[in-house]
């Protein structure tokens, strides 16, 4: 161990600490830039306002849900139910408008609350019943999807007011898509929660060492539950955006969505072992996935290859994470 003097704080070291936290993000950001530059040259249609806004809108659902997922993963948990919950929220929100006749904002709120309720169930199963997060949310993945089919008889929900399209298709000032605005808003909120609130700090602490957190007086049940509620609520909100984009509630929406969401977080440096992850990293991950999908379409690459590419990127990201951990662990001996 280096025995530096207590008072001789070196700026270089502080900077290095800060950097080492961001190394995985830098790698992901580098990949993002490379793909971006490559596509700019490879396809004339890529670097157009239309296409970029389109990417932004497409990314919104994954990005919004991935912010919640990041929080869950930081606690060393996982939320596999987000795809089903998004579908349930989208369908319920749609029904609130078409059958109950609620105005759009209330229906959107209703859908989000449906997601939060699913998240609350997940949270209680994990923190009170003591189920493994993987199992608890795997159950919810099935339960929520089942409820969607029961509620809709597996039929799409149409007949939504035009105002509903605003959420996923609208624009504000100078043509910036509302979904992009939503990404920015959720990202800022997520950033503040993670870096400046008890919830965020305790999430890192619980993910790093649950027993140490408990013995430090942190009410872990409450905070662990809250994390899943937030993930559920954001999944619900994401489901509403998705429903708005197709102006209907789709019972089959979001099958496999959890994979994209988890991939975004992991590519951005969130560690499935807990204790690590940032909103910025997750956004980079979400956009990287979106760019690859968009580029594949523009370049007429067989869509099945997208799946392969994204899978390979996940391997690289997780390998990188584990490699760093091993290095840290051996350095601390």
């Amino acid at each position: 161990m280096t025995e530096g003097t207590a008072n001789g704080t070196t700026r270089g070291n502080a900077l290095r600490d800060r950097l080492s936290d961001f190394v995985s993000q830098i790698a992901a950001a580098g990949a993002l830039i490379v793909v971006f530059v490559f596509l700019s040259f490879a396809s004339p249609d890529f670097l157009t306002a239309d296409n970029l806004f389109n990417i932004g809108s497409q990314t919104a659902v994954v990005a919004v849900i991935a912010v919640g997922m990041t929080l869950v993963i930081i606690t060393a948990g996982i939320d596999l139910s987000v795809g089903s919950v998004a579908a349930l929220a989208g369908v319920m929100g749609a029904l609130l408008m078409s059958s109950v006749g609620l105005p759009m904002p209330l229906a959107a709120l209703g859908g989000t609350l449906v997601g939060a309720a699913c998240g609350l169930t997940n949270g209680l199963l994990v923190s009170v019943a003591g189920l493994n997060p993987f199992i608890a949310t795997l159950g919810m993945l099935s339960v929520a999807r089942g409820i969607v089919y029961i509620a809709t008889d597996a039929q799409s929900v149409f007949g939504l007011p035009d105002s509903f399209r605003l959420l996923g298709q609208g624009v504000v000032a100078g043509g910036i898509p509302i979904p992009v605005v939503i990404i920015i808003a959720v990202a800022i909120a997520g950033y503040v929660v993670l870096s400046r609130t008890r919830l965020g700090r305790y999430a890192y602490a619980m993910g790093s060492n649950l027993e140490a957190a408990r013995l430090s007086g942190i009410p872990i049940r409450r905070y662990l539950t809250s994390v899943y509620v937030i993930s559920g609520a954001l999944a619900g909100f994401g489901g509403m955006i998705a429903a708005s984009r197709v102006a209907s509630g789709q019972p089959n929406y979001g099958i496999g969505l959890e994979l994209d969401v988890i991939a975004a977080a992991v590519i951005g440096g969130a560690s499935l072992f807990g204790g690590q992850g940032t909103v910025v990293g997750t956004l980079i991950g979400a956009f990287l996935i979106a760019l690859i999908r968009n580029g594949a379409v523009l370049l007429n690459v067989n869509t099945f290859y997208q799946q392969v590419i994204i899978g390979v990127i996940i391997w690289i990201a997780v390998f990188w994470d584990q490699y760093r951990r091993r290095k840290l662990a051996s350095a601390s001996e």
Partner: protein
Amino acid sequence: MTTETGIGTKEPVVRLRGVSKEFPGVLAVDGVDLDILPGEVHVVAGENGAGKSTLMKLLSQVERPSSGTVELAGEPVEYHGPGHAQHLGVAMVYQEFALAPDLSVAENLYLGREPGRFGFVNRGKEMEEAGGLLRRVGLNVGPRRLVAGLTVAEMQRVEIAKALAIDAKVVIMDEPTATLAEREIEDLFGVIKALTDDGIAILYISHRLDEIFRIADRVTVMRDGKVVDTLPISELDEDKLVRLMVGREIGNLYPKPDVDVGDVLLRVSGVKRGEKLKDCSFEVRAGEVLGFAGLVGAGRTELARAVFGADRVDGGAVELEGRKLKIKKPQDAIEAGVGYLTEDRKGEGLALQLGVDQNITLANLPMTRGLISLKEEGRIARKRRDELNIRTPSIRRRVQVLSGGNQQKVVVARWLETEAKVLFFDEPARGIDVGAKAEMFGLIGDLAQEGRGIVLISSYLPELLNMCDRILVMREGEVAGVIGREEFSEERVIALATGTGEAA
């Protein structure tokens, strides 16, 4: 257990010449020469980071030396990984055992080398041979038992039996007594004696001085990756050994300040928890250091955890400064002013991936308008770093990379931030350097001097006898007795702890 006979005439079973191991930026092992003779207990002593563990890894082929030669029984060693080392007769008994809990004892003994042919395991042969090995290590359990049901001491025996199963010539033991009770240590030393009588060499890593003198034939002291000296145990005493390990004079290891003990701070009465705690009562006064002594499993940690609200209790009352407390969870205890530093720093004390600053403020975050004040957090962390002399390159550095002693100080800093009036220290000196130990006990003395009540839990009697005003001795979940400083003696504590010679 010293067997002077023959040493010096035998051919070394292991011979290291100029062995170095370089990690990026660190020379962990630096030009080491070492001879290990058959049938000797060779202790490698040194502070954390002295290179002991790396040296062991070089022998067990977990790591490959950067330079130098390693010979086994006169033959230069080739490096092909841990399996190859075992094949050559070098076995390693790890601190954390490498056993598969859901397999039987016999299956573990022969894991990877099952007797039999064509992919079938000859279970009859396996059981028979396993039985013989277990007898040699004095383990009285059937080879069919699942490892999961064994005690820690029994698992360790299985590990040693594994070494015998590969016909080891050298068995490396890395702090094998760290998790054992006193009686189990005695038994282990008996087994080690039996192995050395068979000509097996034991390479034994430890920094517990008492046991080094009980078991070693020769001691090699390492410091900063280098061998300082190799000496027969007869040429060493405790002071000399510490001096060699630390490389400087350590003043008083237990600087107990003279404090006027004040009023009762904490009064605990009738705490019960199943079979673990039976009606335990005690009190701690301001400025007092109260020791908890007892055998492993006597209930010392359980009592501290019960008071702190870490475990559920069946009954009992806790009063702080005359005020009745309702402690159901750690949060309640912390808010009332009681802190508990766990025995297992890494497992229960620290969030290893968080920074020094974040660990210090974890139990008491500085909030302004609902948000964490990062400025205030930095100020607090720097203040505690200077005050406790926490050696870290920066306060944002992950605690994972700090040394054991500095990690322990981070935990102390966290509890100071909660303004705890009563602090339980559970084995605070375990796994930290001699130098850091002196610092830690100095710190405990300072905290008592400030008028806090301190409870010191330790398995090492000299710590308690030197640091405490009173010692509470536990036996089988009960308070066996409390001894005042003027009546302190090792014999008294042991008599109470074991229930022998009650009259003493």
